[in-house]
């Protein structure tokens, strides 16, 4: 190879490598984008009643995240860890009340959706709406997230008792 042709050879080698890496997905090798909380998620039929409470909690988070225009995943930390609540409020420049209201509205919407889908009875619907109205929303969602369906009605009762107590 002559010295004059080395730039062409170098450019060909560089372009080939860059092209190969692009073809193998180099431009898109990055963490998954989280789903838009306002877009409907694919709903699968409940396999077991155990999945109900978790689905309610996640649906409530989606509703709240959609109204606050933040990722659902950000709100999980706010609900699960009160220490993150303040930093979330400061970062997104919202008030405590706006956050609570968004969580409460998300929970009410999730409970209504679950009744419409036939996942819960009207009695459960009433009880859960009571929960949404009277228990701090973040606490209610956190409990739902971790609870199995067998526990949920008992937990709702306990929470309502605590509030009344």
């Amino acid at each position, binding site marked *: 190879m002559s010295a004059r042709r080395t730039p062409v050879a170098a450019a060909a080698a*560089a*372009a080939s*490598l860059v092209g190969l890496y692009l073809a193998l997905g180099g431009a898109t090798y990055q*963490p998954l984008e989280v789903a838009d909380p306002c877009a409907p998620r694919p709903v699968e039929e409940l396999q077991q009643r155990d999945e109900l409470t978790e689905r309610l909690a996640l649906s409530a988070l989606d509703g709240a995240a959609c109204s606050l225009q933040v990722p659902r*995943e950000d709100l999980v930390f706010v609900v699960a860890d009160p220490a993150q609540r303040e930093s979330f409020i400061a970062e997104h420049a919202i008030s405590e009340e706006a956050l609570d209201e968004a969580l409460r509205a998300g929970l009410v919407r999730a409970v209504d959706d679950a009744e419409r889908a036939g996942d819960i009875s009207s009695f459960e619907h009433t009880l859960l709406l009571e929960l949404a109205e009277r228990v701090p929303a973040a606490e209610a969602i956190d409990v739902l997230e971790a609870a*199995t369906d067998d526990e949920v009605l008992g937990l709702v009762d306990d929470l309502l008792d605590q509030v009344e107590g």
Partner: protein
Amino acid sequence: MSAGRISTALWAGTLGVVLADSSVVTLALPDVLRQFDATVVGVSWVLTAFNLVLAVAILPAARLAQDRPSMTWALGLVVFAASSLACAVAPSIATLIAARCVQALGGAAVIAGAIELLARAYGSHAAAAPRWGAAGLAGLALGPALGGLLTDLLSWQSIFVVQVPVALAAVASRSPADVPEPGRNARIDPRPEIALALLSAGLTGALFLLVVLLTEGWLFSPLEAAAVVSMIPVATLAARTLERRLGDDRPVIVAGAVCMAGGLAALGLLPGAGPGWTLAPQVLIGAGIALALPGLTSRALAGRDPEGRRAAATIAARHAGIVLGIVALTPVLSSQLDAQHDAARLSGTSLLLDAPLDPDTKVQLGDAIGVTVASEGGRLPDLSGVFDEVEPLAAETAAYATLEHALVAEVDKAATHAFSLPFLLAGALAALALLPICLGRGP
């Protein structure tokens, strides 16, 4: 070996050691960062301070060396040795950076003295340039690997400790009688120096970013990372034979810059996490160094250089380029690491929430991951051990393993993607070197 050859080997060797110091601590930076609980930007000043002071001090040192080369060289070695010891025992990051500044002052005197002594031994600066050029290239390229080896086998402090006896032993060597070179300085053409500075900035990107990606992103040990980045000097040595055959005309220098820019761009577009993906880009970068730097150095030193100022200016240009690379790329890397940390947190949470696992398993796993993430203090976490802490239900073992694989992959993606933009910017710096190379006439 004759006494004269021993002396010239010592001068070139000490110059190589000082130039290696501009990159030798690269693989030790993660350990330094952890020991002093510093930030990425803060710890980058361990490199930046040395190169900045060296770039600024080399020209005054060259003037001093013109009158008293042997004394300048020996005095520089003593300062270099003492400050190396201070680096090794530094109790804080600020002390370490201050000691690195003094080390660079001593280093500038060593380089200036060694260049002048070599020029007098070989009869002219032009004749001496290939010797110190090769020593400098070897030091710069091998520095990270040697530093990684010492850090892994002993500690980051050992990098500085081993330099003390080396520097002091070298002081004992003799110097030849001064043979001044007649004539005046040729008119200085700044284009080769500008191109050298830009390519050095790109090379710094290659070494500094790759080392941090390997150790902090993919969690390799310094020794493993040293083995991976040694591909660059290996490729450089292999391509030197090609460069000797082709010569150092402008097309060869252009080819070298294109190879470096292409290799850095490829590092910015890695399609997976793992050292195997970095090998081909490293080969391109190593070949680019071999093709571009010798030709640019000889152009920078073209013409008479009786006072050794062009040699000093060439060294200054290289180190200014290193500073440019670190100062320009580190803040970008730091902000990208933060952004990708958040992206990995969100995507990992999303995967955990949507995983077909028992809610109790998810909560336990979420807590365990939270503890690990908090313990990493803002760095991307190592999730490999977290999944052993939680016992999934028998029916969900497969889903649990799938989630583990997916979460580890998300962290790998975030770690790799954080370096994409800095690598692409480093490639752009190397590509910019084509402008001063291509402008103007001549072969």
